[in-house]
């Protein structure tokens, strides 16, 4: 645990509200290399509050990389330069004394900025509400072991289900596409036997909602996979594409 502090220049996006023009503010501070980047922002905010200045609005909650609340674009990369971690797990020892760090919010039409580094990701919830579930009522279910599921399928479904809904895939994609997020949920249920009855209805409904909400299309740059804190594979997108075609070809539904 090093005693030495890093002297850094921060360029942080400040924007008073959704309809305000934002710009970068510059701050200089010294930070312990053992701090996380969010703890550094806590420090900064404490200093600002001491000077009666408004602190930088940013969101975080669990600070252990699972709740998906935090999400900053650090030097152009969602969740910063280290792969497979969320912003809260990025520690300052990965930076050098004298560095300048640019911190921006996630940018996408479907994720409007609320204030400073806070964005509105409720579009994700709207997508989930259209089909991200299996329709079973409480109580009316068979025994947990009634349907055996192969270990491989269960693990693959788990890999898809591990998505934390942070939105880094959208932030990283040059098209601000939500395909990785949506496909992870579609895949989880498409893989499991429990998800089969609603499989085709689900994928159509969720894709339709995704398109309505103003996300871009996927152009297979795979930036989403590279920036995903949980390493969710673009194979999920392929699976969703396949299911979408099959839904269109196989079902008689002409509405969705």
């Amino acid at each position, binding site marked *: 645990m090093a005693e030495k502090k890093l002297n850094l220049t921060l360029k942080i996006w400040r924007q008073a509200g959704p309809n305000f023009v934002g710009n970068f503010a510059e701050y200089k501070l010294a930070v312990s290399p053992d701090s996380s980047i969010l703890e550094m922002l806590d420090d900064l905010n404490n200093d600002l509050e001491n000077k009666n200045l408004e602190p930088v609005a940013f969101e975080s909650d669990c600070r252990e990389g699972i709740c998906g609340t935090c999400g900053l674009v650090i030097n152009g990369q969602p969740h910063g330069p280290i792969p497979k971690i969320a912003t809260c797990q990025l520690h300052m020892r990965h930076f050098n004394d004298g560095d300048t760090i640019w911190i921006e919010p996630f940018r*996408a039409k479907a994720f409007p900025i609320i204030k400073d580094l806070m964005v509105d990701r409720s579009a994700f919830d709207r997508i989930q509400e259209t089909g991200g579930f299996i329709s079973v009522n409480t109580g009316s279910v068979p025994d947990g072991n009634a349907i055996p599921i192969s270990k491989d399928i269960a693990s693959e479904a788990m890999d898809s289900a591990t998505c934390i809904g942070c939105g880094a895939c959208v932030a990283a994609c040059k098209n601000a596409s939500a395909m990785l997020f949506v496909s992870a949920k579609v895949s989880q249920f498409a893989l499991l036997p429990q998800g089969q009855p609603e499989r085709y209805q689900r994928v159509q409904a969720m894709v339709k909602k995704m398109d309505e909400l103003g996300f871009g299309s996927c152009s297979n740059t795979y930036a989403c996979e590279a920036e995903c804190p949980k390493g969710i594979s673009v194979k999920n997108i392929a699976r969703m594409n396949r299911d979408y075609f099959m839904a269109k070809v196989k079902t008689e539904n002409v509405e969705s």
Partner: protein
Amino acid sequence: MGWLYSALSSSIGKKFVMAVTGICLILFLIIHLINNLTMYGGPELFNTVVKNLDIIKPIVRVIEAVLVLIFVFHIFNGVKLWYENKKARPIGYTVNGSSKNSDITSRTMIVSGSIVFIFLIIHLKTFWVSFNLGHPLAEEHQYYEIVASAFSNWIYSGLYIVAMVLLGFHLNHGFQSAFQTFGWNNNKYFPLIKKLGLIYTLIMVIGFASIPIYFLFFYGGNV
């Protein structure tokens, strides 16, 4: 058929159209290249091949019409996607870190595609128009000489080679991307598809670009 239209105009549908038309164009390029490579057989072989195509002209015209349609779909859809995708992020990042998370060829399809498109227009004017619309040498079935003459021009050949390299970028991403869009991404086969795409791309780029190089450096014939 409203469902089909809405399916194809969804985000996944548009990608599907890109992939299908892209695969068609990939196949077309193979035939085109085989045709071009006959040049290494000398003027006589090449001229005979082109001349023979003349005999089945009605069929060629139909194929050409289909090709144009495919091109139009590919380009129209591509531009539309590009425009819509731009709109999905109205304000961009100040610091762009995309070089750290994605391949440049995948991010620049619109650029490589546009340049290849401009090249295509020039290319059609230089060859297709000359071959079909009353070039004096074409009347005499001296197609080989038209090519040799065009490639003796350093600027034209240079542009051609550059265009082929960009086509290579476009193909390298496009090939595997089409399979991903179709949903054929699998731990076993996808690495193979990626390699296949690279090999295909290299063959295309080297094959097409070798011809101007041949004419510039190794063709001693007098035009």
